């Protein structure tokens, strides 16, 4: 049996695929930005002196990390409105992916914070910095640089996770691929192209992040 490849139908819709890819990148970028802030807050929370803060942060991180992301997406989009928190598709997905990113990044940051030498904080204290300034000028910048490689891996997974937005009909790449597939019956071609676009995007993101790492890493 021979299969007659026909990529033309897929290429005809290249604008949809490009649009979908752009939306996916946008969703990932916004969620990562929010997730970085959430993750940092949760990481400090988990290491806080205050038991309540530790408890809340730990609950957040454990709850999110132990729930499949698809379930989170469906929960936020379909169940939260029943509880009076209704959001459109895109904001709802960004909300979910940010929470998800925050929980994973919290774990990365927490281990980064624990690994810092105690002398860093003390040297800051010794020159008269307050705890807040020590966090801002010493702890966070040094920790960030140390965990950059671990963060990069998370960023790439998070970009791939944007494909799950198709489950709530957010028009990103996977959503359009499914649409083209249904309309053209070109199953193999459609999903092959979609996969290749994902691979290409991930490789490009990885290269970009590696350059960023090289730029930001602490010279030695």
């Amino acid at each position: 049996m021979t299969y007659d490849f026909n990529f033309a139908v897929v290429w005809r819709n290249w604008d949809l695929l490009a649009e979908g890819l752009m939306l996916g990148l946008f969703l990932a970028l916004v969620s990562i930005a929010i997730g970085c802030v959430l993750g940092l807050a949760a990481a400090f929370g988990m290491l806080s002196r205050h038991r309540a803060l530790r408890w809340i942060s730990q609950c957040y991180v454990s709850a999110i990390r132990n729930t499949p992301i698809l379930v989170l997406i469906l929960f936020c989009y379909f169940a939260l409105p029943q509880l009076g928190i209704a959001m459109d598709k895109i904001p709802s997905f960004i909300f979910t992916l940010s929470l998800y990113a925050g929980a994973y990044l919290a774990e990365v940051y927490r281990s980064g914070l624990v690994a810092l030498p105690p002398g860093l904080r003390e040297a800051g204290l010794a020159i008269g910095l307050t705890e807040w300034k020590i966090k801002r000028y010493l702890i966070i910048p040094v920790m960030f640089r140390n965990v950059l490689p671990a963060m990069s891996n998370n960023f790439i997974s998070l970009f791939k996770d944007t494909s799950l937005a198709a489950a709530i009909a957010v028009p990103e790449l996977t959503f359009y691929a499914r649409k083209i597939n249904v309309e053209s019956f070109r199953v193999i071609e459609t999903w092959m192209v979609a996969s290749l676009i994902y691979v290409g995007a991930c490789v490009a993101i990885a290269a970009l992040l590696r350059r960023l790492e090289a730029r930001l890493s602490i010279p030695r």
Partner: protein
Amino acid sequence: MIPVLNITDLHKSFGELEVLKGIDLAMHKGDVVSLIGSSGSGKTTLLRCVNLLEEFGRGRIEIAGEPIGYREEGGRRRRLPERQIARQRAMTGMAFQQFNLFPHLSAVKNVMLGLTKTKKLPAEEARAIAESWLDRVGMLARKDHFPGQLSGGQQQRVAIARAIAMAPQLMLFDEVTSALDPELVSEVLAVVRDLGRDGMTMLLVTHEMRFARDVSSRVVFMHQGRIHEEGPPEQIFGAPGTERLKAFLSNSQS
């Protein structure tokens, strides 16, 4: 004249373990005091109390007449708020055994940080001060190097410049050469000696007995959390008065 440092009846415990058992020590402007004593005798803890890196249970520390760390309130002793503590910490400078430079900042930025963020000086002024101190410690040529690109001796000299640039009333040195390879020790000691000649008030913990003998106006021998014997270096090293000190000195021939 008000002493630069005045410690009275200082006690410090870690849980059950009493590490400082009543320390009295006064230093005047220009004094160079060396703290010697075996490991675990409380030297580091004493320095850390003076720099408010440790809380202490009983006793009083004054810098230039100002009681630091605590205030009396209706007969109760209360730790001062963080801002005050931070300000008082900046009155003393500290150089650590492990240098503790900020790894993500170049040498000059290491020195500038306290000037711009604690003293709130404009960047240009801070840079000028930082560069002049780096020059003093012989590190101006490497001002844009990062700590990871410097040898231990070079890092320690930058760390000393970072502390001194804040213009502290008192400098604390905690075994600043003991993490260094032997061939790098002298370049750091030369910097410390130079600061002493310049009139800097300094309290230093050291295992370098010859150095202590050279630079100190007074030597304090600590044993098990107490000052066991103190005096001018000629007396401490030339005519030790107690068996403990004799034993300590003969064990640390260097």
